C-alpha cells in the first residue's frame, strides 16, 4: 500500500499539486490537499470542467461546502463510478480518498504522468520517422500554398498555376460540379421534353447555335445578284454592327449571350473574331452566286474554317518555338551576367594589386627588399599576437570546459537523487507476482466451489433418501401400529427421532447462517472504524455550529441593511 501511495503522490506532484515532502501516504492528506489535488487533476483531464473550480479550499464553511459539492459533481461527470459527494472531500476516509485519487490520476493525459513512458510511433500527430516527416512536409506545403494570394485562372503564369494547387483543385471541382449541374438542369427540363436521346439532343443544340450565329451575317449581307461589291459587306464596322451590343443587329433571341461573351473576352478577340468572320464571309460570298445551294455553302464554310484552323495551329507552333528560343536566350543572358559579375570582382582585385605594383615599380630592387622586410616583420608580429591571444584563450577555454563538466555532473547527480523507488522493473516484478498469486487463489476458490457443490449434491441426495426411508418406515410401522403396542411405541419413537434430527439439522444450518452474518457484521465494523467516524462527527458538528453562526451573522447584516 505504501508504494501505491508513493506513486500516487508522485503523480499528483507532477500534475502540479504542492504536496509537502513529509506526506507519505493518503492517510496524511488534509482536506485542503485533497481538494487541490482533485482540482489540478480535473484541470489536466478536462480544462473546461476544472477551470471554474478553485484549488484552494476557502475558509468559510458554506463556500467550502459549495466547492466540495461542485467538485463531486465534476468527478461524477468524468465517470467516477463510486459514491462521491461533498463528504468525500471534507470528511474523507482513507479508502474513499484513495479510490478517487487513483481514478483521477488514471484519467490524466499520458504526458502529464511519466514522460518517459511514451511509446514512439503510436501518436499519429507527432509521429517521428518518415511518415511523420512526410505528413509535416505536406502540411507545410499546403499551408504555404494557401498563403499565396488567389489569382483568377486566366491571369496565372504556369509557375503560379503550380503553386495554386488548393485553389486550382477547388476551381476544377467547382467547374465540374457546375457543368454537371447545368447539364442536369437542362436535361431535366427541355432535354427530356424533346424526347430525344442525349447525343441527338446535343447535336440539335449545336446545329441550332451555329445557325443562330450565322443568321445575322446572312441577313445583313446584301443579296449577291447585285454584283460583286465586296466592299460594304466586309466592312468591319458593319460586321460589328451585325454582332453589335445589345443584340439589336440581328434576329438573335439570345444574342445578348454572344455579345456578352464577346465583351468579356480579351481585347484581341474581337479582331480575331472579325478576321475569322471575314474569312467565313469571303468564302460565303462566291457560293452565294446563281446556285444558292445550301449544301455546298456549308461544305465550303467547313473548308474555310478548317483552313483557318490549320493556319492558327501553324502560328501556335511558331510561337512555341519562339518561346523556347526566348527562354534559352534568357538563361544564356543570365549566365553571362553572372559570369561577368564574377569576372568583374576578380578584375577589380587584380587591378588594385597591379596599381600598387606599378607605383613601386620605379625603384624595383629597393622596394622589393623593403617589402620583404615588411612582410617578415608583420608575420613575426602576427605570430606574437597569436601567442598573446593564446595566453588569454587557453585559460578561458579550460574554464569553459570545466564549467560544462561541472554542470553535466550536477545534472547526473540530480538524476540519481530522484526517488529510486520509482523504478519500473521492481514494480513489474511485483505485479507479475501478484497476478500469479491471484491466479492460484482463483484456482483454489474454484476447487472449494466444486467441493461445496459436491457436498450440496450429497446433502440433497441424503435428504431425499431420508425422506423416502422415513415415509416407507412410517407406512410400514403405521400399518402394524393399530395392532401391536410395541409397534405403536416404535412408531412414536421414530417420529420423535425424525423430529429431533430435523431440529438438529435446522440448528446446524442456523449456526452456519449466523456465523456468516457475524463475519459480514465484523467487516462492516472494520470499514466503519477505519472511516474515523468520531473524528468526522466532531468536525461535522463544529462545522455545523460555524455554519449556524455564519447564518446568524448574515441574517443580522441583512436585518440592519
Amino acid at each position, binding site marked *: 500500500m505504501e508504494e501505491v501511495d508513493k506513486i500516487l503522490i508522485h503523480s499528483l506532484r507532477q500534475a502540479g499539486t504542492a504536496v509537502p515532502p513529509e506526506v507519505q501516504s493518503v492517510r496524511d492528506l488534509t482536506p485542503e490537499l485533497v481538494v487541490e489535488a482533485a482540482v489540478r487533476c480535473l484541470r489536466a483531464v478536462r480544462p473546461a470542467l476544472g477551470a471554474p473550480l478553485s484549488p484552494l479550499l476557502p475558509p468559510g464553511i458554506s463556500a467550502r461546502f459549495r466547492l466540495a459539492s461542485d467538485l463531486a459533481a465534476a468527478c461524477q461527470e468524468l465517470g467516477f463510478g463510486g459514491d462521491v459527494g461533498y463528504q468525500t472531500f471534507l470528511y474523507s476516509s482513507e479508502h474513499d480518498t484513495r479510490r478517487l485519487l487513483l481514478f483521477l490520476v488514471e484519467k490524466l493525459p499520458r504526458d502529464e504522468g511519466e514522460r518517459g513512458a511514451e511509446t514512439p510511433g503510436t501518436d499519429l500527430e507527432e509521429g517521428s520517422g518518415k511518415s511523420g516527416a512526410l505528413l509535416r512536409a505536406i502540411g507545410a506545403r499546403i499551408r504555404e500554398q494557401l498563403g499565396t494570394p488567389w489569382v483568377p485562372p486566366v491571369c496565372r503564369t504556369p509557375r503560379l498555376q503550380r503553386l495554386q494547387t488548393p485553389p486550382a483543385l477547388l476551381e476544377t471541382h467547382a467547374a465540374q460540379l457546375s457543368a454537371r449541374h447545368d447539364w442536369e438542369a437542362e436535361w431535366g427540363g427541355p432535354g427530356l421534353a424533346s424526347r430525344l436521346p442525349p447525343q441527338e439532343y446535343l447535336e440539335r443544340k449545336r446545329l441550332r447555335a451555329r445557325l443562330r450565329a450565322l443568321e445575322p451575317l446572312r441577313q445583313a449581307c446584301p443579296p449577291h445578284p447585285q454584283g460583286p461589291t465586296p466592299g460594304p459587306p466586309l466592312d468591319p464596322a458593319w460586321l460589328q454592327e451585325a454582332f453589335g451590343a445589345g443584340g439589336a443587329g440581328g434576329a438573335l433571341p439570345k444574342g445578348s449571350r454572344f455579345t456578352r461573351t464577346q465583351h468579356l473576352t480579351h481585347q484581341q478577340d474581337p479582331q480575331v473574331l472579325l478576321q475569322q468572320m471575314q474569312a467565313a464571309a469571303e468564302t460565303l460570298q462566291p457560293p452565294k452566286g446563281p446556285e444558292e445551294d445550301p449544301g455546298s455553302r456549308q461544305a465550303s464554310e467547313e473548308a474555310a474554317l478548317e483552313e483557318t484552323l490549320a493556319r492558327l495551329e501553324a502560328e501556335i507552333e511558331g510561337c512555341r518555338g519562339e518561346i523556347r*528560343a526566348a527562354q*534559352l*536566350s534568357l*538563361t*544564356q*543572358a*543570365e*549566365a*553571362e551576367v*553572372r559570369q561577368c559579375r*564574377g569576372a568583374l570582382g576578380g578584375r577589380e*582585385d587584380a587591378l588594385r594589386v597591379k596599381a600598387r605594383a606599378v607605383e613601386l615599380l620605379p625603384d624595383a630592387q629597393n622596394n622589393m627588399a623593403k617589402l620583404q622586410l615588411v*612582410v*617578415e616583420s608583420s*608575420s613575426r608580429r*602576427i*605570430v606574437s599576437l*597569436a*601567442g598573446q591571444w*593564446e595566453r588569454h*584563450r*587557453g585559460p578561458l*577555454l*579550460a574554464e569553459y*570546459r570545466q564549467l*560544462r*563538466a561541472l554542470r*553535466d555532473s550536477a545534472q547526473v547527480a540530480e538524476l540519481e537523487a530522484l526517488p529510486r523507488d520509482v523504478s519500473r522493473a521492481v514494480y513489474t516484478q511485483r505485479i507479475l507476482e501478484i497476478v500469479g498469486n491471484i491466479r492460484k487463489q482463483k484456482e483454489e476458490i474454484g476447487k472449494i466451489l466444486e467441493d461445496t457443490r459436491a457436498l450440496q449434491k450429497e446433502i440433497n441426495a441424503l435428504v431425499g433418501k431420508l425422506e423416502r426411508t422415513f415415509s416407507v418406515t412410517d407406512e410400514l410401522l403405521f400399518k402394524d401400529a393399530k395392532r401391536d403396542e410395541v409397534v405403536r411405541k416404535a412408531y412414536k419413537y421414530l417420529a420423535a427421532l425424525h423430529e429431533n434430527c430435523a431440529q438438529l439439522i435446522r440448528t446446524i444450518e442456523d449456526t452456519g447462517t449466523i456465523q456468516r452474518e457475524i463475519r459480514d457484521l465484523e467487516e462492516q465494523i472494520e470499514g466503519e472504524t477505519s472511516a474515523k467516524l468520531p473524528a468526522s462527527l466532531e468536525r461535522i458538528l463544529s462545522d455545523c455550529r460555524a455554519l449556524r453562526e455564519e447564518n446568524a451573522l448574515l441574517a443580522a447584516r441583512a436585518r440592519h441593511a
Partner: protein
Amino acid sequence: MAEPEAQLLRAVGLIEKDTNGDALWVWCYPSVTAELRTLLLRKCCLTDENKLLHTFVFGQYKRSWFYITTVEVQDSPALKKVTHFSIVLMAKDFNPEKYAAFTRILCRIYLKHGSPVKMMESYIAVLTKGICQSEENGSFLSKDFDARKAYLAGSIKDIVSQFGMETVILYTALMLKKRIVVYHPRIEAIQEFTRTLPALVWHRQDWSILHSYVHLNEEELEALKACTGYIAGFTDSEVSSRSDLYDVYVNLADSEITVSPVVKEAMTMGKLHKEIGQLIVQSAEDPDKSDSQVIKDISLKTKEILATLASLTEISDGNEKPTLNAEALKQKRFPPATENFLFHLAAAEQMLKI
C-alpha cells in the same frame, strides 16, 4: 597561372571535440563569419551523433572552397581534454591534394604542441613564402601541387566502368550546363566521383560548378540554386524527393541515372550521342590508355562538335562574339535530336543571339 598563395588561402580554423562531448570552434585566423562557422560545424563530422570519422572532406560554398581534416587524439600530453579535432582551411582554388597535405602537417603540429601558435607560423610561412617545414624533416612546397594535376587526379575510367554507355547522359548534362545531383551514403565515394565529372568537359576546365558536399539546409540550397549548372553531392537520401534541385539525379550507390521530365526534351539523345557514348566506352576500356588520355580523347570529340557549331555561327553586327545562325542550322538538316542538342549547346556556350 600561378596565383600567389596569399590570394588563394582565405582562412584557417580549429574545431575541437572535448571530453564533455561538445564540438566547439576554438580558434580561427584571420576571421570566419558566423554563417560559415555554423556551416563548417555541420560539415565536419564531430557534430554527428553516429561518430563516423571522415578523415578528409572538401566542398564549396559561395565560390569558396573548404577543406577539413579530422584527427582523433590519443595519448597526447598537450591536449588533455580533447578527444578529436578538425582543422579547417578556406581557399579560393580547387586543389584537394595540396590542402590535404597542408592540413595534415598542421594537424601533426597541433598534436605535438597543443597550441595554435605553432600552426600560425606554418600558415604564415605558406602564405608568404609558399613553403613550410613539416614535422618529419620534410617540407611542404605549395608549388609542388599544380592545379592541373588536381583536375586530372580523378579516375574517369572508374566512372565509365560503373555507368557504361550512360556516361553519355552525364556528358550531355555537363555540356548543356544542367544541374546534376549525386547521392551516396558515404561522403568519400561522392567526393571521388564528383571531382572527376568536370573532366568530361575539359575545354572549360571549370571546377567551380562542383559542390561536392551539400546538406539539405536552407542556406546551402539557396546558394546552390543561385548557380545555373552544378554538380552537387548529398549523403542524405531525401534529396531524391527534391525534384526542384536537379535535372539529372545520380544514385551512385545503385548506379542509376534518372533524368528529370522537365529537361527530357532538351536532353533527347540521338545518333550523335550514341557515337560519343561509344567513343567514351571504347577509350576507357582500352587498358593501354591512362586516365588523362581518355580525357584527351573525349575533349577531342568535344572540340569537333564545337567546331561544327562554330561553322554555323557568324559575326553579326552589334555582337562581339560569333552568334548562331538558326537558318544555317536548319539548312544542315541534322537529325532532330542532334539539331536540338546543338541549339541548346549554343545557348550554354553563349552563342545565341539575344
